[in-house]
């Protein structure tokens, strides 16, 4: 850190290297703890990501070696590709709805479950986490939303006289996104939810007692002044998880609305990426899409982290 203060130009490289080396030696233990993770992480995550970012400036069909084409992939995507713009719009729509709602639902349910007596609490956590842990169970939504005679939802609506003919929930562009959002929200109690549960368990109980003495009157005040500030690290973690999942919705959509969906009505950026990467084998374009999505997520994360710092103030 001190190196930043000293102007770089005046110090010979040798001194700087020996300074850095002395710093490494002083923190030997820290680096040894970090080394196994750092090594594996660099080789299997950082390098592949950097290579992909590099590939986004090339034409790469997997069969021939990549050809450098500069910003052409980005230009094509943003100016020439109507489907990409639809995908972008859908992704922001999905992220803006499922991200915040999913996040607050996870927090809310975790908090409510935490009020229960221990044994019931463990059972409730399992039930609420069920959609995530039971693999491809979301396929049952296909049956519920099905547009043919098997569909539960429209058969019920017809029986109650709300609608008079079957609705193609999953193929009609005007209903498709809503159906998809419902299923995504239903599955949103995942990683963030469990980290909230664990975070709530780690809060020191004496804080609540002293809060009571200090005049906190109900569970809402307690939530805002004690619980949330005590679990800020988990709130940040949950926010990042919400961003990464809500911007990258794709796998759920494939069995539900098909791939590609009618009129691309539920086509997302990741759908577009998979289309280019795994179907057309244009890895250059796919990498450019991944890089754009990455920038969007990092930007959103930056804003959200700033908002979360204000919790409990």
């Amino acid at each position, binding site marked *: 850190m001190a190196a930043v203060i000293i102007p770089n130009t005046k110090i010979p490289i040798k001194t700087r290297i020996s300074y850095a080396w002395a710093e490494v030696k002083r923190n030997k233990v820290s680096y040894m703890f970090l080394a196994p993770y750092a090594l594996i992480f660099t080789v299997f995550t950082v*390098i592949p990501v950097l290579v992909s970012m590099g590939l986004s400036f090339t034409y790469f069909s997997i069969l021939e070696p990549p050809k450098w084409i500069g910003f052409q992939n980005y230009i094509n995507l943003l100016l020439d590709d109507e489907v990409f713009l639809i995908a972008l719009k859908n992704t922001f729509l999905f992220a803006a709805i499922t991200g915040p709602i999913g996040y607050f639902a996870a927090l809310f349910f975790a908090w409510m479950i935490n009020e229960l007596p221990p044994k019931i609490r463990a059972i409730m956590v399992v039930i609420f986490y*069920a959609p995530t842990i039971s693999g491809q169970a979301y396929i049952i939504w296909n049956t519920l939303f099905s547009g043919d005679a098997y569909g539960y939802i429209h058969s019920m609506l017809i029986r109650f006289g709300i609608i008079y003919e079957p609705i193609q929930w999953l193929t009609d562009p005007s209903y498709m996104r809503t159906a998809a959002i419902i299923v995504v929200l239903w599955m949103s109690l995942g990683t963030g939810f469990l*980290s909230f549960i664990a975070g709530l368990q780690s809060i020191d109980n004496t804080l609540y007692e002293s809060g009571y003495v200090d005049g906190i009157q109900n569970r809402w005040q307690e939530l805002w002044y004690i619980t949330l500030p005590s679990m800020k690290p988990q709130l940040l973690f949950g926010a990042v998880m919400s961003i990464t999942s809500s911007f990258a919705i794709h796998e759920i959509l494939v069995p539900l609305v098909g791939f590609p969906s009618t009129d691309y009505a539920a086509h997302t950026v990741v759908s577009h990426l998979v289309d280019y990467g795994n179907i057309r084998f244009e890895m250059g374009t796919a990498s450019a899409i991944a890089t754009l999505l990455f920038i969007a997520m990092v930007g959103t994360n930056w804003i959200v982290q700033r908002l979360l710092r204000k919790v409990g103030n």
Partner: protein
Amino acid sequence: MVKVRIRLKQRKPNRSLSGDITNIVILIFFGLFFALPLIYAISNAFKPLDEIFLFPPRFFVRNPSLENFQDLFILMQQSWVPFSRYILNTVFITVVGTVGHVVVASMAAYVLAKHKFPSRTLFFSIVVASLMFSYHVTAIPSYLIMSFLKWIDTYYAIIIPQLAYSLGLFLMKQFMEQIPDSLLEAARIDGASEFRVFWQIAMPTVKPAWLTLVIFVFQNLWNTTGGTYIYSEELKTLPFALQQILAGGIARAGVAAAVALLMMTVPITLFIITQSNIIQTMTTSGIKE
């Protein structure tokens, strides 16, 4: 009910009876909604084949039978290598990978949260940012790295990258941050080595965190098919072998339901065990200054 309320009242004073009741009603209502897949999976696995394709469809099983499970065991006996081999492979990958990841990621998280050294914030930001890059496009570079290391068709290709799963470090670091420095300092003054401070003070304090992490990693590895990296039949995993059985199509729909239920059972059992342990630590401790 009265007993429950007294206990709640002892633990947390700011509670009204009406609030508690509303809470329970809401949880039961949404609980039913979220429990849907579990109920459906269990009910489906016991449906005989004719009932799976019944019209109009039924949510619950009418004549439960073990037919699907029997069919599955017959199919298992016909596999190329003994079926127990697939089970053993998956158990091996899952156990080694989960334990390895929790140790490697927690060690890194510990120093990132509790030591001050140059470039630690930068490193942590890179780890968090890496969660936001689509894994779809890194598949090819990853494959090239594996083949350069000559790790194709070995378990290294599956287990080693999992050890540095970004999510684990992020989660552990967030919890480690909350450990009071005074607690660690006290142990250091008593002459404990840094590794002992980490292993005997830090790790027990953040037990809820790594019990949660175990679930995430276990789920990942338990469902891994080996994908593009494993080619030898005797190294293939359980999910892969089961996929092969299900490739029989519509005639195997009953078996598929049995498979889905069996594959779910192990992570759910582990989940229940870890969750009840998290709750035990809660009643005894909590992070105290």
